[in-house]
C-alpha cells in the first residue's frame, strides 16, 4: 500500500535573502537572515510566503501559478537560477541563499522585471506568425502533420522565466544578445510552415553577434532550463541553417520553393 511521504525533517532552515528597495532612498543592498522550521512538502513558495507573513511583511518576490507553468518565480537559489515554486527545500542544504536573477532590472528584493525584457525580445524577433494568407472564418483549418505540430509545441514550451538568460555569460555582458530564450523562439517560428519568413529573412537576426553566433558555447542555459528545453539542439539547428545559408549561395535561389512545399 502506497503512503505519501512526510519528510518532516525537523530541520531548522536558514534563509539569507538579498534585500534592496530601489524606490526607498534609505535602502541599500544587503542580505537579511531568516530562520524557519522545515515542514513536509515545503517548497520555496511555501517558505517565502511564511517569511513574509510571519517575519517581514515588506519582503518582495513574485509568484503566480505556484505550479511551474507561468514563469514568474525565477531566482538565484544558492547561486543557481531556478524556479522557486518547484524547488523543494528537502533538496537543499540547511542554509539557502536567495538572490534576484541578474540581467533583468531589479524591482525590489527578489523581484525583477522579466516582463519588459521578454516583451522587447518578442518585438525584436517579431514573435508572431507572419501569415501567408488572411484568416478565412468559413474555411476548414489548414492541415498539419501531427509530428510537426508536436515539434512546434516542444519549442513553444518555454515559459519565459528568464533562468536561461540569467545563466548566460553573454547575456550578462551584452544587453543586445537575444539570449537562449530568444533563439528558441526564433527556431520555433522557423520550423512553422504557417510562417512566411524565409531563412534569408531570418539571417540578419540570427547570424549576427546578437544572434546565434554571439553564443560562446558555455551552454549553461541547457542545464539550467527548468522546463528541460533542448537548447543545445536548438542552437545546433540554427547554426546548421545559417551555415548552410552562408556556404551555399544557391540556397538563396532555391528559397521560394520553401513557401510552396510547406503549403499543406
Amino acid at each position, binding site marked *: 500500500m502506497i503512503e505519501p511521504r512526510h519528510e518532516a525533517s525537523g530541520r531548522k532552515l536558514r534563509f539569507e535573502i538579498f534585500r534592496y528597495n530601489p524606490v526607498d532612498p534609505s535602502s541599500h543592498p544587503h542580505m537579511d537572515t531568516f530562520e524557519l522550521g522545515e515542514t513536509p512538502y515545503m517548497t520555496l513558495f511555501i517558505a517565502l510566503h511564511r517569511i513574509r507573513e510571519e517575519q517581514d*511583511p515588506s519582503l518582495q518576490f513574485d509568484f*503566480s501559478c505556484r*505550479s511551474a507553468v*507561468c514563469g514568474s518565480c525565477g531566482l538565484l537559489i544558492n547561486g543557481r537560477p531556478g524556479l522557486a515554486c518547484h524547488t523543494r527545500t528537502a533538496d537543499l542544504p540547511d542554509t539557502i541563499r536567495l538572490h534576484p536573477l541578474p540581467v533583468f532590472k531589479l524591482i*525590489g528584493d527578489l523581484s525583477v522585471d522579466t516582463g519588459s525584457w521578454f516583451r522587447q525580445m518578442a518585438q525584436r524577433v517579431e514573435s508572431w506568425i507572419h501569415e501567408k494568407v488572411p484568416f478565412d472564418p468559413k*474555411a476548414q483549418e489548414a*492541415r*498539419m502533420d*501531427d509530428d510537426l505540430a508536436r515539434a512546434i509545441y516542444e519549442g*513553444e514550451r518555454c515559459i519565459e522565466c528568464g533562468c536561461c538568460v540569467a545563466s548566460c555569460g553573454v547575456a550578462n555582458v551584452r544587453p543586445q544578445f537575444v539570449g537562449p530564450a530568444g533563439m528558441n523562439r526564433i527556431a520555433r517560428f522557423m520550423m512553422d510552415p504557417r510562417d512566411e519568413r524565409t531563412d534569408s529573412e531570418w539571417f540578419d537576426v540570427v547570424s549576427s553577434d546578437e544572434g546565434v553566433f554571439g553564443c560562446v558555447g558555455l551552454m549553461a542555459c541547457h542545464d539550467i532550463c527548468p522546463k528541460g528545453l533542448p537548447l543545445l539542439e536548438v542552437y545546433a539547428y540554427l547554426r546548421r541553417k545559417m551555415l548552410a545559408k552562408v556556404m551555399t549561395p544557391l540556397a538563396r535561389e532555391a528559397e521560394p520553393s520553401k513557401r510552396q512545399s510547406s503549403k499543406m
Partner: protein
Amino acid sequence: MQAVFTTDVLVIGGGLAGERCAIEAATDGHDVVLLSLVPPRRSHSCAAQGGMQAALANCVKGAGDNPTVHFLDTVKGSDWGADQEVVRIFVDQAPIAVRELAHFGVPWTRVRPGKNSYFIKGERVDISEPAEKVGLLMHRDFGGTAKWRTCYAAAGTGHAVLYAVDGEVVRLGVSVRDRMEAIALIHEDRRCWGAVVRCLRTGKLSTFLAKATVIATGGYGRIYGQYTTNATINEGMGAAIALDTGVVPLANMEAVQFHPTGLMPSGILVTEGCRGDGGHLLDKHLHRFMVDLEPEKQELASRDVVCRHMMEVIRDGRGVETPYGPHLWLDLRHLGEQHLTTKLREVYEICTEFLGINPVHDLVPVRPTQHYSMGGVRVNKDGQAYGMTGLFAVGEASCWDMHGFNRLGGNSLAETIVAGRVIGRRVAQFARANELDVSTALAVRYQRQQQKRIAGWLARTRSGPSVYAIRDAIAETMIRKVGIFRTGSELEQAVEELSKQLRLVDQATLRAKSPGMNPELTFALRLRGFARLALVTAVSALARTESRGAHARTDYPARDDAHWLSRTLARWPQDAKEPVLSYEPVGLIDLPPGHRGYGKVESVDMTDSVEEYNACVETAWRRQGALEPVEPIGASMQWGSWRAAEAETEQRRRA
C-alpha cells in the same frame, strides 16, 4: 502631480479573455491600453492544460458532432441555469475561434492517420482514424460531453494559446502595462469612464480614462485560500471594483465549481484529461467507486457529480487519512510511461517535481478543490454590464452566462476566446459611437479618494489583526461552510463569520510601511473587496434553497424549477452593510429543463409553461438594469434545432 492618461479602450486583465478582446478593438483601429497584475503571459490562462471545446467532429469518436450537440451538452451541464441564447452564440462561434487560433500559430494536436490507441472507460481501444481527416484538429474526451470535442495542444493548451494570442497583441502594438492594478472604477451617473490604477513597481497612482472599459480579471478562487487550483493572483478584484460601484450586480456567485483532482497538499490541478484519458479514482481500499456510483459515465461524469461522489466516499470514512486531512487516489499507472510522459507530461512533471512521486508506479493523492467561478459581473449578451454604460466584462470575471450552475471542462478556455471576439467587437463598436466626454476633475477626484484610502492604511497605528489573518479566516469559513455540500445552518454561520471578518478589515493594521509597492499594503487594498466577494457568495448560497449544478444543498436536494429557474443578482449599495439580492429569469428557454443524463434525478417541475416563462424574460431583465443589446434578445436562437441532434445522438448511442 496627478497622472491622467486617456485611451479609447481600457482592458483590465491580460489573460485570454482580455487579450482576445483587445485584439478585436485594436484591429478596428482603436487605441487600446491593457492592464495586468503580471506580464500577460503569466496570467492564469497559461495554466489550463486540458483544452478547448469546439464541435469540429474531426475524429471517429467525435463523428456526428455539431454545434447543436455542443449546445445540448452545455445547457444540460449548466443544469438549465445558462442563458440559452448565449450558449447558442458560443457553440456557433467556437469552431471559428479555434481555427483562428490555428491561424495565430497554436500548435494544436492533429489527427494521426491509421490506428490510434485510446483509453476509453479504462479499456485500451484501437481506433483507425480515416485518411480524409488526417492533419485536422484532434479532439479528446472531457467530462460531461456526448462526443469527443475538446481541441488541445499536447499538455499545455492554455499556455500555447496565450502565447499565440499575446503574439498578436504585441504585433498590433497594444499598449500593455503590466504590474498595474486597477483599484477603482471611475464612474458618474451610471457611465463608466475608466479606472484608478496602482503601479506594482513603484506604488504610484494614476488614472486611465477611456470611452469603454473592460473587466477581464479572471476568477476569484483565492477566497478559498489554499483549497483552490487558481493562481495566487486570482483574488477577484475586477468583480470587487464592479461591486464597489453600488449599481453593477454580480450574478450567481453561489455557483462555484470544485475540481475532482486537486493535488494534495498544494491544490495544484491534475487535469481532467487524466480522467478523459482513462485514469481511475480509488478509495483507500483501492476500490474504483465511480463504477458503482455512475455505471454509465464512470469517472467521466460531469465535475460536480464526480466531486460529490468523492466527498461522499470521504465522508463514509473511505478516504486516506493524512496530517493534511483525507484524500483519495488517482490511478494513472495503467496508462503507461509512454502516455504519461508525452500526452500527460505536465501531470507527470507536477507529481515528480512537487510531491516527489512517479505516477508510472505510484498513486497520486487528490481531493476536490475550488476550481472555477461561474459567477461574476453580470452582463448582457454584448458583454455590457448591467446598470453602467461604457463598462463591459468578459471571461471568467463575467457572468455572460453560458455556464449557468456548472461549467463543462474545456468550455471556459473556449469562452475566453469566443467571448473575447464577440464582445470585443461590441466594445469596438461602442468606442466608435461614443466620445471621451469626461472632465479630468472627475479623474482627479477618484484618484484623491484612493490616495486617501492608502494614507488611511498607512496611518493606522492601533494594533489590529494582520491582513493575512483575516484572509485565512475567510478561507477557512469558505471551504468548511460554503464548499461542495451546503446546508442552511452552516451557511448562516458562514454569513455571520464572514460579516465579522469584513468588519475587522477596518481595524486591521499594517506592519510594513516601506515606500514603493509594499506587498502588505498591496494586499490590504484588496482585502475589503475580497471579504465582500466571500460574503456575497455565502449570502447567495444561503438564499438559494434548492440544489442546482455545483450548488448542492443537502437540506434542499432537489432542483426546483418552479421557484429557482433564475439567476441571482447581488448588489452592494454604497454605504450598505450587506449585499442586496434579487433575481431574474435565466433567459429564453428552448431546451426545456429535464434530466442531465447523469447525477441526481430529483427535481420539481416548472409551474409556468415555457412560453409563459419566455414572455417575461425581456422586461424582467430590463427591470434589473440590462442594457439594450445591438441585436434584439432572441435573435440568435435556433428554436427546436436540438430535437434532431438529440434524436441523432440517442440513435448513435443505441447502435
